[in-house]
């Protein structure tokens, strides 16, 4: 796996989910990892527009993530670059993709956070990256590899 994928069924129509994902007001409601306050939430949801969210956690630490909207098709999908600011290690830029599909009682949301560009990710999935990586991972977990 070069990416993390999650699927959620939400009892709300796609347009509402889309706004929750892309607007500053929406982002402020779900981005922070604990009950600490969201300090800044800015979003310019159009291709090339940027977003920025800063929050303080209950332990007093402050974190900021920001990026650019790369693709945006309301109310169906949004692709954005994503990076943390601050902290000891900056893991660099990654890519978040959210796809929305209307279902009977609301929306099915498919979320992907990938390290790689889209074409690379897709190629890796087609070629069964996941299975071989999982095997290697299982092996490494046993700690028998020469290091």
């Amino acid at each position: 796996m070069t990416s993390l994928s999650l699927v959620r069924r939400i009892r709300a129509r796609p347009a509402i989910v889309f706004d929750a994902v892309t607007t500053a007001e929406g982002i402020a409601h779900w981005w922070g990892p604990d009950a600490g306050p969201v300090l800044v939430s800015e979003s310019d949801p159009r291709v090339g527009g940027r977003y920025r969210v800063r929050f303080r956690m209950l332990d007093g630490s402050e974190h900021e993530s920001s990026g650019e909207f790369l693709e945006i098709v309301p109310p169906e999908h949004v692709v954005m670059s994503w990076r943390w600011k601050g902290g000891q290690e900056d893991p660099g830029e990654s890519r978040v993709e959210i796809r929305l599909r209307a279902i009977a009682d609301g929306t099915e949301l498919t979320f992907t956070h990938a390290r790689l560009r889209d074409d690379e990710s897709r190629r890796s999935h087609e070629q069964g990256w996941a299975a071989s990586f999982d095997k290697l991972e299982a092996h490494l977990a046993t700690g028998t590899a020469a290091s």
Partner: protein
Amino acid sequence: MVNYQERLDRTFAALVDPTRRAILAQLERKAGASISELAQPFAIKLPAVMKHLDVLEEAGLVTRSKSGRTVTVRLRPQPMREAMAWLRRYERFWPERLDELAAYAESKEAEARSKER
């Protein structure tokens, strides 16, 4: 010194190719292998295998050591552990965020419905 994010990108880029993953899988089963041993299962020529080994070595995923005429290739798993740690960090983070997102969107939906009535 290559920084953390460049290392991560190199690791993921190295691992995306199926031949390179197969080479790593081979090395996983043995403590070390010669280049011709590694090339054997593939329908590609030795120089192509060498190129893959260059990429893997640059990403820090293998080491090559020469003894006489034989080059021994060994697996070096640290970069993969780093890549896994990157994924794990988000494996915890995102499910919780999406739960919050769902709760928020559902409250907005309820609001919209009560207005529509």
